[in-house]
């Protein structure tokens, strides 16, 4: 017997019979098989890439991202200025170094502008990955106390950094105007670049976030890899500065196509569909691989965190 009622006081026999007959009989009005019903079992990998439930919880995603944004801007005194300070300072430093070295003459745009555009996008990628990878551990109180699709947490962290990018791009446009470059209609195509960038950052972020739950040293290892990533991506240099034969190698880096074509759209240079295609493909691969890994590890989060 499933029902271990020790006494018959509460449920009279007629009622409990009725309950049993319904359960075994017609399944139509059985709540356990209705549309809202939930089955909890040890582990099911059927939902390996569960983006649908993410869409269902989009309001929560929005509120969590909003919370991140509000907290960030309420806590830091400098607020928006802080977001802009990073690319401006790095640009100044790299400009000084590069002008001394005298390697910037073959660029079509002034080097400060060139570097600033790179740092604007890089700052976004960097903070999206960092915020994403720490998000699960930072939200451990949510994970152990309430259920919702866990993917929402790294997603909301990355989405919150999108606002920083908006400010970054605005300042970039201002910088362009200062240098006498009027942004063309091709600026409207920027989402084409931003979407794969976001997917790439999300991919790396989600993967490291899931690992970070179990292996807390990811937090210390990740900055080192991000730094390597920075140097092997054309953030402060252009592919045209590299030796001919290494360009093909560089293009395996999804950020190469993203950064080069980002500048192409900004400064009216020719758009390279090949490198863009590589970027989108690699970014998507990383993204889905990360989500798959995430779902494999997800079930243990609340136990381990």
């Amino acid at each position, binding site marked *: 017997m499933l029902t271990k009622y020790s006494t018959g006081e509460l449920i009279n026999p007629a009622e409990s019979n009725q309950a049993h007959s319904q359960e075994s009989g017609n399944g139509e009005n059985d709540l356990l098989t*209705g549309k809202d019903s939930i089955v909890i079992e040890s582990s099911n990998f059927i939902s390996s890439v569960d983006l649908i439930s993410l869409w269902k919880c989009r309001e929560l995603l929005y509120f969590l991202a909003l919370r991140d944004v509000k*907290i960030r801007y309420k806590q830091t005194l400098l607020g928006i200025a802080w977001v802009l300070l990073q690319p401006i300072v790095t640009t100044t430093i790299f400009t000084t170094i590069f002008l001394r070295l005298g390697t910037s003459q073959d660029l079509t745009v002034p080097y400060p502008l060139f570097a600033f555009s790179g740092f604007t996008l890089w700052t976004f990628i960097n903070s999206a990955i960092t915020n994403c990878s720490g998000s699960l551990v930072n939200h451990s109180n949510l994970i152990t106390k309430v259920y919702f699709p866990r993917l929402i947490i790294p997603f909301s962290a990355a989405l919150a950094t999108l606002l920083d990018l908006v400010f970054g791009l605005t300042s970039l446009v201002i910088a362009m105007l200062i240098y006498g470059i009027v942004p063309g209609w091709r600026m409207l195509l920027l989402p084409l670049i931003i979407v794969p960038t976001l997917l790439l950052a999300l991919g790396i972020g989600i993967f490291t976030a899931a690992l970070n739950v179990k292996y807390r040293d990811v937090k210390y290892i990740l900055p080192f890899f991000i730094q390597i990533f920075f140097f092997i991506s054309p953030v402060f240099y252009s592919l045209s500065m590299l030796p001919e034969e290494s360009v093909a190698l560089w293009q395996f880096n999804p950020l190469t196509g993203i950064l080069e074509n980002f500048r192409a759209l900004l400064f009216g240079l020719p758009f390279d569909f090949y490198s863009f295609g590589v970027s989108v493909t690699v970014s998507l691969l990383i993204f889905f691989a990360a989500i798959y890994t995430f779902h494999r590890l997800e079930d243990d989060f609340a136990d381990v965190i």
Partner: protein
Amino acid sequence: MQTVIKVENLSKKFRIGKLRGDEGTLRDLVGNVIKFPFRKRVKNPEAETLWALKDINFEVYQGDTLGIVGGNGAGKSTLLKILSRIIKPTTGRARLGGRVGSLLEVGTGFHQDLTGRENVFLNGAVLGMQRREIEKKFDEIVAFAEIEKFMDTPVKFYSTGMYLRLAFAVAAHLEPDILIVDEVLAVGDAAFQAKCLGKMGEAVGSGRTILFVSHSSMMVEKLCQTALYLKNGKLENYGATKPILAQYEADYELNSAAEAVSRNLPEIEDGEVRFIEWSISNSTAYQAHTIVSRQKAEFEFQLVCRRQIANLRFNFAIQDHDGRPLIVASSVSANKAAAAVGEGTYRLRWTCYLPLQAGFYRLVAEVASADDDTLLDTWRCQPELEILLSPDELIGEQLQGLINIPVKFDLARDVR
């Protein structure tokens, strides 16, 4: 009646004990993969495992209110976490027919820097409410929390009471088909608890299915028709509330004698008199240091004497949290007979009826020599004394005031 929750052979195993030294970090993992690339990586077999739940089977019918009782470590929270989908069972399965809302904590997702308004929306979303739903109930939530004026103030400036009221107000307006509640009611002051109980009572009346975990057999008795008793991860009994609670209390009271809290004292030296522990010999099953308002309470104090005293005097004070004495009792006024002690351990019993409202109080015990009025020992007893209302006195709200007196009202039409 339809089955709305069906749990079949549900078990949950936890690994306890330490991880092996070389598997805690990613660096170790990567290092091991490089050193022994072909070795199959097995989990540390020496790690101890613990079955937090073992082969649990039960079903709950729609509209039932099920109270889950059990001692510490019985698996109550694990069961709730599995049913809330926070953790996965090791084996077995559970089926739930409907939207589930779980309240394992008050104020999940609240952030100190956000305003009350922002937190309501965030917390509502975290608990599974739609934005439209929250907007519709917003005024009601604010009214329930009674903090209209502070909705645009960051919650870090709230008092603990305000914070809890707001957090519970959001949770109380959650309307899932199945509501899962952990001992969240155990926080906050008595007035707040009483209000929450009232709201829970409303939920019970509305035909929702509720799972309610508590230490307090009184709350379970008041709210639940059925109860489930977990003991060491196994389902001990399941059925109508009263007999289950009787069984639980009987089991629990066997252990409650050991619950007396010893005072942390250095070695007692010659010439000293010291209280060493206190307990309530007829405490409720809920906690060893809990009594019911206006019912007989038998306080027991153990004291150690290291000298002879011809005439002892005891004073007891019950104070509120500001240290204001509410009730002071002295052995001098009670009976004039001299209490003489020699060296040894004594047990002192103080019986009284405390007509205080529900809440937490400080109990201070003093012993003095009645002859020359020298104070020998003062102890602010640990833990605090908790006073509860008897189940038939619980109403949806906590009345103001400190004293709880029996009242009777008669209303009759005036025919003159």
